[in-house]
């Protein structure tokens, strides 16, 4: 059984399981949307005394912070007990494109699980402009952008689209505009730094 679920899951199983997570949260009286956790954490940190956006009862998001804690534990379980036998199998075309940018892809589990490009995402990289852009500015954009848009992949792409929300469709179009511009126009510049 453990061996069976330790294999990478087919995309159809994965998609179904994500909708199950959404359904469970709805049944428990909440909704699926992870980026609100950033607002709650800023509020807990005292930002509510400075700006209205954080001046709300963060306890209404206490369930989300517990969910986030669970997802960290789930990541720990999945990376140990349920670890895949091989790194993520991505397409040869992507491996080629990325190697042209100077990013090596792990071919053995010892070299990495294929979750992060470890030659770019490490603490040493924070001494370089490239690392600061990808790690610090990238994170900044995630926080600023998701809260400006009012949701991320879970709140807009999964919950919003499946509830036929037009603002969510607009947001998802935005996600792709940003992602495509970054990947195709800006990555060649950033990775030449």
């Amino acid at each position, binding site marked *: 059984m453990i061996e069976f679920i330790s294999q990478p899951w087919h995309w159809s199983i994965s998609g179904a399981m994500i909708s199950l997570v959404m359904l469970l949260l709805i049944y428990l009286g909440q909704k699926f949307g992870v980026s609100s956790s950033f607002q709650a954490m800023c509020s807990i940190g005292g930002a509510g005394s400075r700006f209205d956006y954080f001046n709300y009862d963060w306890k209404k998001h206490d369930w989300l912070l517990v969910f986030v804690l669970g997802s960290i534990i789930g990541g720990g379980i999945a990376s140990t007990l349920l670890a895949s036998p091989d790194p*993520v199998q991505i397409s040869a075309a992507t491996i080629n494109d990325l190697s042209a940018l100077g990013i090596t892809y792990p071919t053995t589990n010892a070299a990495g699980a294929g979750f992060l490009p470890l030659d770019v995402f490490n603490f040493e990289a924070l001494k370089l402009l490239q690392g600061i852009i990808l790690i610090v500015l990238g994170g900044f*954009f995630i926080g600023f952008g998701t809260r400006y848009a009012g949701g991320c992949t879970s709140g807009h792409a999964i919950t919003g689209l499946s509830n036929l929300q037009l603002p969510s469709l607009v947001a998802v179009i935005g996600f792709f505009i940003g992602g*495509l511009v970054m990947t195709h126009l800006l990555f060649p510049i950033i990775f030449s730094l």
Partner: protein
Amino acid sequence: MKLFKFLLVGILFGIVMTKSEAISWFRIQEMFRFQSFHMYGIIGVAVVMGALMHFLIKKYDVKNMFGDVIQFQDKPKTYKASLFGGTIFGLGWAMTGACPGPLYVLVGHGYWIILIVILSALVGTFVYGALRSKLPH
């Protein structure tokens, strides 16, 4: 104790995100380069099944665990915020290869550098909160 259920759903989510490989920076690159169906399959199935769930819940007035009929809120019709905020998030999604859910899951994998990404995201959230009244929504 009533929060414990959310811990369990969170653990399930962390496992699902990992085994689906949606937490992989490389999978996100593959998606933005249209070189694999994998991520589109995941999101597509989740949205289609989710739409069916929403439809059935509304049609049959399904109740939640508290016995209340489930009501869905519409997202605010702030289209400019959706587009501009969404585009900024999209830049960050490609750079870090992770959206907020996977960021937390990656920390569970022991990728401590992701804590810097999350810290930066909190700064981004703070700056949004500070500038909110001046931004088009």
